[in-house]
């Protein structure tokens, strides 16, 4: 039972505020905002705050706080999923989700909230069903001027953003031409986590993937989405972390996956085809997790050369192991250096890396004190962050995307896009050598 729902800006302004049950005392939004501000500064507290019997549950989407309050002991996952869904439905209607678009369309958001929650009980969150109850026309904000938001809000981490975003158009807005463009977007988004040892041996690896869909097709045609034929699901327990045995074979093995409720799995076991009638708006068709070893996109070697007692040189080699027609961008490489480092000078900074190339970063460090013999203990690990469009680490492919045809001339645009992002890309140990000088 939800008591209130509100959206706060980063400064704590109310953008929308809806009280469903009138049981939470006044000032809840302020209490929440103070708590969260305080909480961000001091990480000692991690549970969502409970103040005077009021539970505050929030998600942060596009820099905004989506918050619900409740007096009862409800399922936190239910509320968090609901908040994410409200954010997503709102985005479906407004095209772009940010403070500006919400402020311009707050009356429409109130309309949505009226239907999504009644007396604190979640009702429908289907973009399509809601259409018949929404009477406001969305007021579009200029999407070009704004930083584009990712196809999934979950990729919004700070200022990092996804390239190649799905179009930012509302599901209800009529376009200037009057006719809606028939198109469908399928994004395969993979977050990868890899840990390497110093010798380049993979210690742990995991892929968290999502097949995201955004449909602008009219008349709800049925869609068939075919995945790799040799895809297999579920790994026996004994081999679940045996990385050596599974590499080499070409099959994609998912540890586990889950599906959107519109997906029919009738033929999935036979030919790995998902059948679904996509609901309007954006949604995850399928989430999957892979711990099978895969070919990592980058090989990184880190070396510290000690050049005398108070100087050292860091050598970072990054080799892109993907094909040359793919370019990785938004790359950052982090390497903590000893705390007594006074000065560091760099020779090269990489911004984007083209496939099959190698880059070297050289940094000269000067220390304020003599190192205690083992610099490598004080430095590292190296952490890398990147986004590689049109590349997927798991080799999971959409073989084809078939749309049930209404007529011969009906040929909607189909976009299938891949992107791989680093979630945690760590090179643990750093090699050490002593430079003779």
């Amino acid at each position, binding site marked *: 039972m939800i008591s209130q729902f509100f959206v706060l800006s980063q400064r704590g302004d109310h953008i929308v505020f809806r009280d469903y049950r009138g049981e939470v005392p006044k000032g809840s939004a302020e209490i929440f905002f103070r708590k969260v501000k305080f909480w961000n500064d001091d990480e000692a507290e991690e549970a969502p705050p*409970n103040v005077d019997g009021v539970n505050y549950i929030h998600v942060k989407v596009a820099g905004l706080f989506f918050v619900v309050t409740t*007096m*009862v002991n*409800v*399922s936190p996952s239910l509320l968090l999923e609901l908040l994410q869904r409200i954010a997503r439905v709102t985005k479906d209607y407004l095209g772009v989700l940010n403070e500006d678009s919400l402020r311009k369309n707050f009356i429409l958001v109130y309309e949505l909230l009226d239907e999504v929650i009644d007396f604190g*009980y979640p009702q429908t969150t289907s973009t399509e069903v809601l259409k018949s109850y929404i009477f406001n026309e969305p007021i579009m904000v200029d999407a070009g001027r704004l930083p584009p938001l990712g196809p999934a809000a979950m990729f919004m981490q700070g200022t990092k953003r996804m390239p190649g975003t799905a179009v930012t158009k509302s599901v209800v807005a009529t376009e200037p031409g009057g006719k809606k463009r028939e198109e469908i977007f399928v994004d395969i988004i993979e977050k990868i986590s890899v840990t390497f040892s110093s010798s380049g041996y993979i210690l742990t690896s995991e892929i968290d993937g999502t097949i995201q869909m955004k449909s602008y097709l009219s008349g709800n045609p049925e869609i068939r989405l075919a995945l790799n034929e040799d895809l297999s699901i579920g790994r026996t327990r004994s081999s679940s972390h045996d990385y050596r045995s599974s590499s080499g074979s070409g099959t994609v093995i998912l540890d*586990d996956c889950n599906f959107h409720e519109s997906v029919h799995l009738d033929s999935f076991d036979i030919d790995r085809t998902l059948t679904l009638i996509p609901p309007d708006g954006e949604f995850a068709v399928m989430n999957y997790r892979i711990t099978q070893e895969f070919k990592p996109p980058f090989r990184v070697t880190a070396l510290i050369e000690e050049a005398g007692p108070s100087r050292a040189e860091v050598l970072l080699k990054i080799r892109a192991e993907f094909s040359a027609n793919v370019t990785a961008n938004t790359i950052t490489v982090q390497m903590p250096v000893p705390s007594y480092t006074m000065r560091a000078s760099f020779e090269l900074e990489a911004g984007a890396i083209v496939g099959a190339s190698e880059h070297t970063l050289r940094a000269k460090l000067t220390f304020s004190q003599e190192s205690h013999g083992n610099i490598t203990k004080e430095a590292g690990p190296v952490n890398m962050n990147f986004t590689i469009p049109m590349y997927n680490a798991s080799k999971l492919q959409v073989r084809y995307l078939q749309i049930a045809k209404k007529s011969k001339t009906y040929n909607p645009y189909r976009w299938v896009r891949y992107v791989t992002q680093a979630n945690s890309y760590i090179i643990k140990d750093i090699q050490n050598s002593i430079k003779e000088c």
Partner: protein
Amino acid sequence: MAPTAPTAAKSASPSQPSGKSEVADLKQQLRQLAGSRAPDADDQRRDVFKRVISCMTAGIDVSAAFGEMVLCSATSDVVTKKMCYLYVGAHARAHPDLALLTINFLQRDCRDQDPTIRGLALRSLCSLRVPNLVEYLVTPLTTGLKDPSAYVRMIAAVGAAKLYHISATACIDADLPASLKALMLSDPDAQVVANCLHALQEIWTLEAASSEAAAREIETLYSKPVVFYLLNKIKEFSEWAQCLVLELASKFLPSDNNEIFDIMNLLEDRLQHANGAVVLATIKVFLHLTMSMTDVHQQVYERIKAPLLTLVGAGSPEQSYSVLCHLHLLVMRAPMLFSSDYKSFYCQFSDPSYVKKLKLEMLTAIANESNTYEIVTELCEYAGNVDVPIARESIRAVGKIALQQYDVNAIVDRLLQFLEMDKDFVTAETLVLVKDLLRKYPQWSHDCIAVVGNISSKNIQEPKGKAALIWMLGEYSQDMHDAPYILESLVENWDEEHSPEVRLHLLTAVMKCFFKRPPETQKALGATLAAGLSNTHQDVHDRALFYYRLLQYDPNVAERVVNPPKQAVSVFADTQSGEMKDRIFDEFNSLSVVYQKPSYMFTDKEHRGPFEYSEDLTNLTVGAETTENVISAQRYQENDNDLLLSTSDKEDNGTRASNGSSTSTYNAPSDLIGSSLISSQTPAETSLINTIGPTSSSQSNFSLDDLLGLGVTESPAPSPPVLSLNSKPVLDPGTFQRKWGQLALALSQECSLSPQGAASLMNPQSLIRHMQSNYIQCIASGGQPPNYKFFFYAQKDGATAFFLVECIVNTASAKAQLKIKADDGTAAEAFSTLFQSALSQFGLS
């Protein structure tokens, strides 16, 4: 929607308006628009309304404009209508008289052609929350529940719950719950069904406090026909409604294993749902259904592992955290089932620190012989982490694993390596751990001390680390060559050391050292005591004074006090009791899991829904809380009568009186009764109560009992050879619950009832009376045909030992499942025989 009127133009974008002048301005404009028939009046109205709502959102008090808003409310524009309803709903309570003006057009809209308008009006009508308008609600609600449009029925169902909150009597008198129930079991629209269920649960839960009929109605919600009806339709429901139905199913008491497997097969594919809330709700059903089947329960753990890990990887950090908290709970319950998945709990670079903290705890829990090496290696990596709090946690985790006794040898080496890292906080944390390790494994002292002795106390800034080092210096001063001199230098720097904790430790350490190496320490001891005595901190001062006088009195006594022979600590106290953990597990898929405390610790009583367990004993039984309350209360009633009647047995009267008082303290949260208080109850206290009992007024007993909050046990007497039961045992619910949580299962058996007995078990009371005549008391009961659940207790005659029984009776099969726990495990077998014979006699007399 460009504003056409000049008045509206100046606020085309609804920015944050400011204060009173704005409201006055809005009122003015509304008044002008009220009667306006201008062609653009609708557009203007829209804009002004929008500004009003914008003010409302920003928290500005716009209630002053209520009258004007109502005047403008007659409009055919749906968007304006909605804004008006939103406004009226928020402010009607403050203006009940003016709200009456809105009733008219709302009622008219409730009869509109368009179902959307009808629904909208009905929802707004019910949201007014004005008590004196109740009479206008009942008719539209009753019609609404029968509306041809599912949308309207759906709103009407929730509307009934709203009405109940405004006026419970109006809702009950109109017989709305009955209509809701009928609708729930017949409506073709899944959302209508779900809303009926929401409303019924809310109404009946609140109503149950005063009405037994409502309590029975709640039970019917958990009955097989309702649960199976809803479960069979599960795929028709929206994902949110699915969660509701699953929650209901998790409280269902299946009558046999086939039902359990039917439900699990039906819900198997729910574990593949992309919505984490659905998956967690399904897991709850699986876990709770299989509680009594150990093997299957374990298989459930295996089955749910993969979906949970997938959910952790998908979704926002907030969602992952919620799922991870649940995973954490399961890992803590059954660490060995997760020991091969340890790599899944390795911290990732991008994990927020609250996630890392949970993962560290899980890694600590699942460490066993086979994976300790890998886990500790990983944890040691984190110790060098730039994130200092996590580095600290990692070091602590290594220490905890060492205390779990796996591969201590290697871990001690690792810990000692930490000391070589030469980072202040690492050294400090490690010292604390080494200290704890030495308390458990004194045999390692030799290795540790060699390394610890090399640490300069000057390099340690943190009081905790410094205190740990000082403790070791004192404790092992005979093995550490420099100990007296290090201590001496610390004493010399007394003034620079501000932490009372360090000073206290220093006092004790110097004392210890003195008794081991007197000539070397004597000077330091004098200086320490002098410094301590002149200290302004009360504790430091007092301890110095205490040592000083102790030494003055008799140095031998002082040595016995300061340096007694110590036993190695075998187990460090767990911070959370097993019972607490069980209760959190009962509340799986709720905030309890995230907060890591049971719901009664953070929710008000009035806000505990039908699914919440209350803090009193009734939570041991499933569902049907209210009947149990009633029964328990009745039982106490009887005891009270006993108290009035029995005048012969005075000592019994004394204890009886204190038991009688527990009717008043019955609902006190059990955590108020600190378990330490109870366990520390000394014979002296018992005898105190017993002696007061017969002589003083019962009033004093009441207050004493309130203070202690416990059932008083009788003084031990020589026990008779054959097991006979105390005819009037006394055990209060709090103690029962605590005992039930603490004691191990002594016996678990299945036995049969006589067919007559099974047939005559129409309600719990009949069996309770029968067992009472056999000196077996019931403390709580619940359930409905064919399943009943009872908690009984009995006491060995003349002894303090209690027997606790959980008894689940199935009248259809005439079988009963017994779980017996006993203070005195040796007598459990005899008691079981006695209990079974009593049970088999039921219905035959």
